[in-house]
């Protein structure tokens, strides 16, 4: 796994799991790797993975079956989509609009280029 940017590692792990949920790779009620397995897989301290799992649990994206492991929640994809939409509209879009204004690009122009 490649880590980058300013984002702390545990949040990047959350993002990676959310992306696999959105792509359908991780379906509801599928068991995800244990904290230690996942840590070994990506070369990250298990406590960091634990922090990521705790956040995803609090956000209702995964759930913990005591002694068995962590599983994907039944409505995980909707939860992730809703929060990422909010994130996009509140944080990413304003930055894109700022850049478009700076470059004198209209929304139509951008859409046209994208459709090709």
């Amino acid at each position, binding site marked *: 796994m490649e880590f980058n940017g300013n984002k702390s*590692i545990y949040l990047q792990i959350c993002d990676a799991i959310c992306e696999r949920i959105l792509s359908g790779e991780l379906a509801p009620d599928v068991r995800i790797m244990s904290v230690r397995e996942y840590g070994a897989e990506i070369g990250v301290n298990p406590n960091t993975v634990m922090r990521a799992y705790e956040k995803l649990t609090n956000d209702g994206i995964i759930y913990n079956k005591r002694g068995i492991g962590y599983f994907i929640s039944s409505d995980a994809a909707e939860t992730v989509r809703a929060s990422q939409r909010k994130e996009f509209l509140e944080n990413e879009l304003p930055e894109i609009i700022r850049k478009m204004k700076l470059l004198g690009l209209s929304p139509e122009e951008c859409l046209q280029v994208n459709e090709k």
Partner: protein
Amino acid sequence: MITIKDLGFSYGDVPVLKNITMNLEEGRIYGLLGGNGVGKTTLLTLLCGLKKPQLGSIDIDGYAPYDRKPTFLADQYYLSDEVAAMNMKAADYAANYGKFWTGFDMGKFNEVMNVFEVDAQQKMNKMSFGQLKKTYIAFALACNTKYLFMDEPTNGLDIPSKAQFRKAVTRYTREDSVILISTHQVRDLENIIDPIIILDRQDVLLNASVAEVSERLYFDYTSERNPDALYCEMIPGGNIQVYLNQTGEDSKVNLEALFNTVHQHKELIKGIFNK
């Protein structure tokens, strides 16, 4: 659990460690950082019982390491920075010396040797330095000890082995183990060591988890200069700046920047972490 209290050690009249007090807990992979000559290796050799504390004490689950009780020694391993090139095959070395550790697992030794792509049938004195180092790392992990002390383990490893090492430290160790790794190669071990201990001449400057660090310090990677930054370093594409975390926002801890920040603001850092 390791409890170190007021530990002091000198070589002749040159004091190296003085008033070292800290606890090391189970299930953690501690990174021991510090400049040259601050006593990292001395601390490791005191913990494994090779040296005797001159002042203060070390308690490891009720044992004083220097008593060298067999039951204690069988559950701990110290991997020195310098490793001996024995005139024997790696597999024979492991089979013979593994007997001293009750949890030793020959299968695990062979598995880690495979992961590291070192031939266990090769004689150790015919190996390159890196291969020899990997053999000893495989042996250390195969001992399955609760306490594992490693001095500069990534020194001499090639690029793929460094990634393998990071994975192996989690995959092949016990869940209840206390692992302490000293290093200058912070980039080799970034993301795997947590908590971070920074040792200074005769003092512990920091002993905190990465979560605690990011709670108190903010690592900014943007190009805009912040006049309140405790530390600033130019990197391609901008700066790494470190300042006190006022907003509670999370950022990625950069170990090199952390080390330099701590060194330039020793008293301030000790103040904000010792609360």
